[in-house]
């Protein structure tokens, strides 16, 4: 049984290495290729540094906060690092496909500043969700994938709900609304912080993980606030043609991120949450 587990871990490691290599080539090839007529140097530097920043966050988590058998193991840290890069590859692809927010087309090729800010916020949000999934003790890689997957699905679904109410993606990519880019980018980062907290914790079982994930309920409040804010800005843009909302958007971005950090700091541990006890009772009654 142990041999089978090691074999599966080895396969995950190999697949992650292949995906990571593909991702790094796809990411850095356009950034490093010669573009003599391109004016967007700042976008190239920011996008070039973004994966490096993410690797540092993941490495710190793995060295300091991960499972007891991972923190001191070079092999396991390497495996979870490459799994993290593959995770970011999946996340960036999902952002292009589902959010229509392409780091390559919008941020780099079209020099769209609104999209650049949203992409940076989204990439950091994805990094935090993966890092959160690595926090706590667990028996194997599937715990990280399952808890991180819950966070990723919630993050994507909420992004789609926000877009269906406020046409955010169209306003960022087509209208190049920098204020909207700042607000949505900061929301993606802030929701990443809250969902990272929801993904963190020691592994017990799949069901208990689902129950513990309820700890991230406050992300719904954050999404609701963003929808109201965006509807206000849409109304404002219709009534007043000059939509100069950069400073207000920066202020809101700071509020979103500060709110997410405060929520994570003040949120009681899962066991102190009354919903947790109710869910546990349901679990035991189902088993009896």
């Amino acid at each position, binding site marked *: 049984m142990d041999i089978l587990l090691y074999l599966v871990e080895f396969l995950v490691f190999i697949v992650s290495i292949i995906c990571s290599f593909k991702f790094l080539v796809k990411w850095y*090839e*356009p950034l490093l*290729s*010669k*573009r*003599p*007529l*391109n004016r967007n140097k700042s976008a190239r530097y920011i996008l070039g540094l973004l994966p490096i920043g993410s690797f540092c966050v993941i490495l710190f988590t793995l060295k300091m906060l991960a499972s007891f058998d991972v923190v001191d193991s070079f092999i396991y840290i390497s495996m979870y690092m490459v799994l993290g890069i593959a995770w970011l590859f999946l996340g960036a692809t999902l952002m*292009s*496909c*589902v*959010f*229509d927010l*392409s780091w*390559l*087309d*919008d941020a*780099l*090729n*079209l*020099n*769209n500043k609104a999209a650049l800010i949203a992409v940076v916020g989204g990439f950091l949000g994805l990094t935090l969700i993966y890092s959160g999934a690595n926090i706590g003790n667990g028996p194997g890689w599937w715990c990280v994938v399952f808890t991180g997957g819950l966070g990723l699905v919630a993050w994507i679904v909420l992004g789609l709900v926000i*877009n269906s109410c406020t046409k955010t*993606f*169209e306003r960022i*990519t*087509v*209208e*190049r609304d920098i204020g909207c880019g700042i607000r949505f980018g900061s929301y993606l980062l802030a929701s990443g912080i809250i969902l990272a907290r929801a993904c963190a914790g020691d592994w017990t079982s799949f069901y208990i993980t689902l129950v513990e994930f309820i700890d991230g309920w406050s992300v719904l409040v954050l999404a609701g606030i963003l929808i109201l804010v965006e509807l206000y800005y849409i109304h404002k*843009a219709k009534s007043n*043609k000059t939509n100069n909302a950069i400073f207000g958007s920066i202020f809101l971005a700071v509020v979103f991120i500060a709110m997410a950090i405060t929520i994570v700091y003040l949120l009681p541990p899962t066991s102190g949450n009354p919903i947790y006890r109710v869910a546990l009772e349901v679990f035991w009654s189902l088993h009896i």
Partner: protein
Amino acid sequence: MKDKMSLYKIWAPDNALWTQWTKPVLFASLPCNTGDCELKPPSADHMQMVDYNAVIIVDLPGKESVDEGLVLAQCGYRPVPLYNGVYGNSKFSMIVDVQGIAEALQEGADMLSSLNIRADAPPVFLLDSNRMTGQGKQPGKYDNRWCVFPQDMPSASFLLKNGIQKIIVRSTRIQEDLAHILLRYQNQGINIFLCSNDEILKEIKVSKPSLFMSFFYRFKVTLGLSRNATGGFGAVIPEPQIGWSNRSYYWYG
């Protein structure tokens, strides 16, 4: 012979309002010498005076679009090349032949630099109507087919903010990718006119294309095209090679 940067700066001067939409892809991939090209700017009887409330989209095949753009530049419009297909290694290997456009852009630069076009002049966006013609992904060919997306052109609110009330499309028909853009404009109250070969302006109603306003649209379309690392579209499609075991392998070449 102008270098690529100075050629690009002529077509996309820093002070012009619409410069940010110009695609640098074709300029960056231009060969040193594309050959001789004789510019034959057509007559522009349909557009003798500049209309500051109008944007023109020229969607004609190959170098005709550049020629038309230069004629409109003489009337006072600012030509904005939106060609997003890369110039391949050889004329015969490219699926979309951009040789004529490349030559016309080089030859037309002198004429354009001699014109005194206002910084806030209304734009004339230049598109190659052959951009999606030809079979894609043919092994051994240089697949430089491309599409224009709503992200490649100014938004309706940007146009309205700059006083644009109508769009004139100089083409024989509205292509599907352009319909995605024009319908967005039409929905915001901008009037769309088509000017075909008879050079008579006709107001049209753009019909809804498939996947309109869908966030999957761009992802789906770009999956069928070949990206270039330097931006835009263009890549060699690998040819299958027969190995010692009689199996076909794909190889770049």
